[in-house]
């Protein structure tokens, strides 16, 4: 498992999570830590409880046992300390793109014009220049996702949880956006935890892949069965190297 370190931006300690008010144990003794600027991937098969873990880390639900720490502060069951990007982009159709991405600021009490200005300054960097006054329905899937990334960033937390953020995109846009996110999260020093069931995506994106395994619906709670460290100092296209294939094999072996 990820070793306990004092510089962890996000840490989960011994989380036990349930569905149906405690009737079904989803995951037991989940421990993980993500450092500033680091991207960690949590992989597991569909239905193993990945999103449930993310809900608990975001504070939307309270675990049966264990706690969630952000920069050492206990935030268990308290939303707002980490930014959460859900699987769907969740752009509100009645708000223009700029108002959608500035929503976290507006909700926090920033005046609308100030929130718009602050968001507008980041449009170029997030590849959204020129879309400020468009409606979400006028954007392509990739652009919508970029807007969702910017909104997540404007939540103002340096810890970000991403629930299969690239799954709804076509293959080419997915690769583009993955590389873009890797670069921008490094630049902005964001600690991100991404959940996915795409092993290639996990190996391409993260510095470390955690493997979650279990069948909660059949009464077998999930747990983290292993961690694969991804070397990032490889020259050339990492996805074409032996190291990449080796990492992928290790993850697949752990998934069974």
């Amino acid at each position, binding site marked *: 498992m990820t070793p306990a370190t004092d510089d962890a931006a996000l840490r989960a300690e011994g989380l036990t999570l349930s569905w149906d008010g405690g009737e079904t144990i989803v995951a037991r003794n989940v421990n993980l830590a993500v450092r500033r600027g680091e991207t960690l991937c949590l992989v597991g098969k569909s239905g193993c409880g990945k999103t449930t873990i993310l809900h608990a880390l975001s504070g*939307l639900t309270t675990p049966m046992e264990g706690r969630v720490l952000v920069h050492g502060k206990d935030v268990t069951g308290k939303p*707002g300390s980490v930014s959460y990007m*859900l699987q769907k982009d969740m752009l509100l159709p009645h708000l223009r793109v700029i108002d959608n991405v500035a929503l976290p600021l507006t*909700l926090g009490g920033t005046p609308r014009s100030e929130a718009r200005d602050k968001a507008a300054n980041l449009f170029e960097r997030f590849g959204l220049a020129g879309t400020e006054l468009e*409606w979400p*329905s006028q954007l*392509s*899937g990739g652009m919508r996702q970029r807007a969702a990334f910017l909104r997540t960033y404007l939540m103002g937390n340096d810890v970000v949880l991403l629930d299969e953020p690239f799954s709804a995109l076509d293959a080419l846009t997915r690769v583009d956006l993955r590389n873009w996110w890797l670069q921008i999260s490094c630049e902005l020093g964001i600690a991100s935890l991404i959940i996915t069931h795409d092993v290639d995506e996990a190996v391409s994106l993260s510095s470390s892949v955690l493997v979650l395994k279990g069948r909660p619906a059949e009464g077998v709670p999930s747990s983290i069965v292993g961690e694969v460290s991804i070397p990032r100092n490889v020259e050339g296209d990492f996805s074409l190297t032996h190291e990449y294939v080796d990492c992928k094999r290790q993850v697949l072996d752990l998934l069974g």
Partner: protein
Amino acid sequence: MSRNMGASAPSNARKVVVPLVTTIVTIAVWWFVVHVGFVPNFLLPGPDQAVMAFVEDAPLLAEHAATTLAEAALGLALGTLVGFVIAVLMDRFETLYLAINPIITVSQTIPTIAIAPLLVLWFGYGLVPKVLLIVLTTFFPITVSLVGGFRSVDPDVVDLMRTMNASNWQIFVHAKLPLALEPFFSGLRISATYAIVGAVVAEWLGGFSGLGVYMTRVRKSFSYDKMFAVITLISVLSLALMKGIDVLARVCMPWTRQKGKES
């Protein structure tokens, strides 16, 4: 190839021409059966007679229509307000939803014509019973559509806003209310037609002015051409009100006018 083209969506011209031709044919058939004598003229006046009656009585009809429209507008405004408040409370308090949902549904099974005499008995021949009847008939579509709209908001939107530390009020104002606007306007469209019909029914049972009062008078004098004139006017007013609501919906929801892009 030509078969596929034929199965495509109708063109704008077709959308206008087909209903227009149907309407003209219907009026022509109506004129024909009356003037050839299939139906006695004292039972069914021809369309030309209805038009003549309309022209003849236009000033009087306008006066009565103003009364009916004023009652309908006031009743619709109050009905919308009542429907909105009930929907918000039902969405906010689950127990209240469970408690009053059956009562509201049952209230709509009582025919308007059965409640109207009671309202006249309790509140007299003035404006109050008419407006009350309209409120009773118009609040329901508003409540049902709004409650449905609030409940159909994706729970993930609510979760996302909670991660942004949004309060329940902020979630309501920024997400639930705007996302429920489309069903709200569908409900308002139905309520608008109910408002006109409600006003006319209330006027049947007593009053001094209004299209319902006019209708009762011409029926008693067997002026069926005038009956058809006023029936047509009521339909036109309902359609105009519905159209007005469509325009209002387009103004209030500019995002619905945009076309999506492929990803």
